[in-house]
């Protein structure tokens, strides 16, 4: 079923369709005009709002729209007979139900789990990682600048977030390639391949559990040790909670920002006027980053319908998913003037690329810092560049969208 070509996007959309991954914008325009909350049975029953106001309302209605499952395709139960294969799992994890708090939590757990993460991800706290990020960007550029060409995705955007989040968590940066492969296995290829996703999750949880055990023996000045030392209501946070949150930070810290940096470069490669302006007026950068986030929002998390509910005439059943299409909301002409145009100094921009409401991204200051620094360093060294062949760019998509292979050249 899932491979059949979509003919009606309002009743049978497929977010994993290659056309949708590459260019979803006309599809969203069509849906907003005639069927603002679309429905599909592909990958299970799901709904997809595309108007800003609908996204805003649904995101805030946590009573009907739970976060217990934020991925659209069912991950499915573990295969029969798996118990026998479980021997390699640490004993403490035999009964562990994988989760990724706070993104997969509802209140009351969500409240304290998110509050725990806010101080280390505040703007002041992430500023500590800026020099290292800048140095990393510089050394990546050193590696390809003399060639006059690079894959802006694989050689640059993809390389930055895994190393930064590894430093913050306190896990080895030289595992960056493995982390990236895990992210793809879980959130890219794994979204439509339950076996791959389960296997990848198991590898990640197993790896992080070992790092947590090490941190318990030898506390460091890093996020894993911070979480292990944290208390909620006078009680230490459970090790398995630290595991779930570390899993979230590793995955969310990599995939989203990698795509945002890639999309920003994709845009700048095609818009010399924006490059010139950012170089001449570097103080515009924070506003420009928000505009690039609006226009190329990468993330479409899902919600789980907690009880039957009718929304705008749509009868949603318990267990349905709702795709929180924040990227489409950010292109809604009812909210943004000339939404398809990147206005690099757009003054009024209440975008919801990071979501809205209680599940709004906790790592946005880190994402903003990485985007700003990676663009600044690139433009400093490579002020004039363009796509080698726009048709050669490949896109990943579904629930997290951004360019993968993106050959760029410069004089």
């Amino acid at each position, binding site marked *: 079923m899932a491979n059949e070509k979509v003919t009606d996007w309002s009743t049978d959309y497929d977010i994993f369709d290659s056309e949708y991954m590459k260019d979803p914008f006309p599809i969203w325009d069509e849906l907003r005009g005639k069927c603002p909350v679309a429905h599909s049975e592909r990958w299970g029953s799901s709904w997809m709002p595309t108007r800003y106001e609908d996204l805003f309302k649904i995101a805030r209605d946590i009573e009907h729209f739970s976060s217990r499952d934020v991925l659209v395709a069912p991950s499915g139960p573990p295969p029969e007979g798996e118990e026998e294969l479980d021997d390699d799992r640490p004993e403490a994890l035999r009964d562990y139900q994988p989760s990724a708090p706070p993104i997969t939590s509802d209140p009351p757990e969500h409240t304290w789990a998110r*509050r725990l993460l*806010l101080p280390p991800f*505040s*703007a002041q706290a992430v500023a500590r990682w800026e020099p290292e990020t800048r140095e990393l960007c510089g050394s990546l550029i050193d590696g390809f600048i003399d060639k006059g060409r690079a894959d802006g995705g694989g050689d640059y955007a993809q390389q930055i977030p895994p190393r930064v989040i590894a430093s913050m968590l306190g896990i080895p940066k030289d595992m960056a390639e493995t982390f990236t492969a895990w992210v793809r296995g879980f959130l890219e290829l794994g979204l439509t391949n339950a076996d791959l996703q389960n296997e990848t999750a198991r590898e990640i949880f197993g790896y992080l559990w070992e790092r947590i055990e090490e941190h318990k023996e030898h506390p460091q000045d890093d996020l894993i040790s911070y979480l292990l030392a944290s208390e909620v209501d006078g009680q230490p946070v459970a090790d398995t909670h630290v595991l779930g949150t570390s899993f979230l930070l590793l995955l969310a810290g990599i995939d989203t920002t990698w795509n945002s940096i890639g999309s920003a470069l994709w845009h700048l490669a095609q818009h010399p006027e924006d490059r010139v302006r950012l170089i001449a007026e570097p103080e515009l950068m924070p506003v420009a980053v928000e505009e690039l986030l609006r226009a190329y929002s990468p993330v479409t998390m899902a919600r789980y319908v907690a009880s039957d509910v009718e929304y705008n005439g749509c009868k949603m059943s318990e267990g349905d998913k709702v795709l929180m299409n924040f990227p489409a909301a950010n292109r809604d002409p009812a909210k943004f003037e000339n939404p398809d145009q990147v206005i690099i100094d757009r*003054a009024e921009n209440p975008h919801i690329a990071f979501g*809205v409401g209680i599940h709004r991204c906790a790592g946005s200051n880190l994402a903003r810092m990485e985007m700003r620094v990676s663009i600044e360093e690139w433009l400093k060294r490579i002020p004039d560049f363009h796509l080698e062949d726009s048709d050669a760019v490949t896109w990943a998509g579904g629930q997290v969208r951004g360019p993968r292979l993106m050959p760029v050249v410069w004089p």
Partner: protein
Amino acid sequence: MTRVHVDPSKCQSDNRCFQLAPELFQLDDYGYSHERDNGEVPRELQEKARLAVTNCPERAISFVDEQG
């Protein structure tokens, strides 16, 4: 005197107001925003205050108009 107010029940630490108008807002250790100086907006910061209000995705900031 025009004043601005951040509704703490709506703020999700987006930091947009602080980016746009650090003269009017301050952040706590969690990144939640609070108005400075009782929210008073001097005449020369009116436009910045307006931008902080319109850019907050949570709709957490509002103008509080007082008589006199």
